[in-house]
């Protein structure tokens, strides 16, 4: 019996873990200061041109890091946006300049009504049950790969 090639075994274990725990998928040797979890987006009707992505960033390091870029095959452009509230309950949102999202030590939640990632000019419909790969680039910690869970409403 030929033992499975170690790399393939590791890869399949990682893939299985990712499927089971919805956790971050990490390449070997990746920086562990930054953990990204609970990445999700709401399934939207096909007419919607943009979708918001939400996630939690845990910075386990002692120093602040910075989110400098985000990338996904599902979005032609992916940029951080923040929601603002004016008088009369009027709400809107504006882009945050590239690299301006500071990630202080601790927990940073990107959530509805707050800071989030805008997936623009979608290349595919985001349907419930899909898992969309997302790459986040941090100034110090480097790249973190996660899967975005597309939830029904």
């Amino acid at each position, binding site marked *: 019996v030929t033992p499975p090639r170690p790399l393939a075994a590791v890869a399949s274990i990682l893939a299985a873990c990712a499927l089971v725990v919805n956790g971050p998928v990490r390449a070997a040797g990746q920086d562990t200061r930054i953990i990204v979890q609970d990445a999700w987006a*709401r399934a*939207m*009707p*096909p*007419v*919607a*041109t*943009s*979708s*918001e992505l939400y996630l939690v960033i845990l910075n386990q390091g002692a120093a602040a890091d910075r989110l400098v870029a985000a990338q996904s095959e599902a979005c032609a*452009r992916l*940029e951080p946006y923040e*929601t603002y*509230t*004016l*008088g*009369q*309950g*009027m*709400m*809107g*949102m*504006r*882009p945050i300049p590239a690299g301006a999202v500071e990630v202080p030590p601790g927990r940073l939640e990107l959530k*509805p*009504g707050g800071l*989030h990632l*805008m997936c*623009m*000019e979608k290349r595919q419909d985001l349907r419930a049950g899909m898992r969309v790969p997302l790459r986040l680039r941090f100034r110090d910690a480097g790249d973190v790969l996660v899967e975005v869970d597309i939830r029904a*409403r």
Partner: protein
Amino acid sequence: MRAAPVGSRSADRGASHAPRPDKAPAGERARWLLADVDRRFRAPKWLANVLLAAVPWLLAGMVGTAAADPGYAFRGIVSETRPRATDFTLTAHTGKRVRLSDFDGRLRLLYFGYTNCPGICPTTLAEVHQALRALEPRRAARVRVFLISVDPKRDTPERLGAHLSHFGPAFTGLTGKPAEIAAVAAAYGVYYRVTEGPTPADYLVDHTSMVVVIDEASAVRLLFPFGTSSGDMAADLRHLLP
């Protein structure tokens, strides 16, 4: 849940001190809606949270207690004067012209939004949808939800129909001429304005994000500001649908 103070004025007697809501001009109605919404949004966040937590307690003695359960404190912002909902006519996603009063006898939820709205509107509609699913079927059947477009330029009836197709027959999309939309929004204290988006064609619309709750007797009873959970909505709706 603590009961309302003993000897407090009943909701009906409290309301009788207010000017006859159906006689008040539309602008007047918009003003109290704004006052209610501003109370929630102008104060610092922590203060707003404290006030929001306190509002049901403060109001429990004056207004908003359902007859069936006088101790019930609404989670939404309670309309103190219960004005009669301003009637309007707009174009439904089916292409048919419909009036709000066509749905008299139903509990109606109005939400002003738009189909290209990437986060605030889908979040709110999802909470509303979940709230309806949490209600007993006999109650949910008495509710109609209206998404009134603040982006009539892009939101054709067809587009609204496609957008709402997942939500079921209780949801109706409404659009119209820009002037029609402006009049309805003003009557309900809703502000909106076009702002820059990712591309010129993909512009965004800032807008007042709240759900207006109109009871089966066509009185405006509650506002659900952005962030109201489906559970809180369902609890309040249950008390308006005995």
